[in-house]
């Protein structure tokens, strides 16, 4: 993943994911603003909507990719010993993959499967 996302492709992926994350955030904030006192049933049925599920699933993938590229850039700038940086990369990737699996589990349950 890191080799495939180096340089220009990472730059582009960071910007494309940023646009999606921004749009989703605005959509989510508007949805919250329109329904200030949400009940559990409303919350659940809103997330069981296939379109909301799909948009949220894409959001999670975009978020994890965006986080990976961003944190990778930060580590590249501040952590200079190679062994330490590579170890940090490993920890970050494991952390993000765990978050991704967790999110997948939540969304699968929300879909009612």
């Amino acid at each position, binding site marked *: 993943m890191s080799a495939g996302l180096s340089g220009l492709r990472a730059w582009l992926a960071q910007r494309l994911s*940023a646009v999606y994350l*921004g749009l989703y955030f605005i959509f989510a*904030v508007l949805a*919250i603003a329109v329904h200030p006192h949400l009940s559990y049933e409303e*919350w659940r049925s809103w*997330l069981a909507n296939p379109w909301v599920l799909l948009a949220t699933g894409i959001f999670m993938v975009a978020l994890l990719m965006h986080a990976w590229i961003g944190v990778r850039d930060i580590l590249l700038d501040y952590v200079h010993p190679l062994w330490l940086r590579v170890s940090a990369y490993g920890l970050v990737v494991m952390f*993000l993959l765990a*978050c991704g699996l967790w999110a997948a589990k*939540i969304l699968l349950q929300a879909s009612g499967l």
Partner: protein
Amino acid sequence: MATPQRPVFLNLFKIRLPLPGVVSFAHRVSGALMFFGIPFVLYLFDLSLSGPEGFAQARSWAGSLWLTPVIVLLAWSLCYHLLAGIRYLLMDLDLGIDRKASYLSAAWVAGLALLLSLWLLLEIYL
């Protein structure tokens, strides 16, 4: 005055960054904060969908006093990162890249992010 001692080590605390530099660094800080916030938000998300009791619990935790610093930091990070990010996307399109415009937009991003996160926090707490 004696000649300066060599080598000169840069002291990050003695460098006075211009405003666009501060905005850039804060973009990193807000991104890093949200990185650590992912499991916290996923936990609340999972809990809120686990059933009516979980939903009520997630809501009361999100509004609880001892989690206020976390919620405030995450709300600010989200709003700030979004606005600063939009600024960078516009700059990628060659918009507002001269010195005066970049200072002005940096100030707008910093100010608007405070207002937007304040509004988000009011939505959460009221």
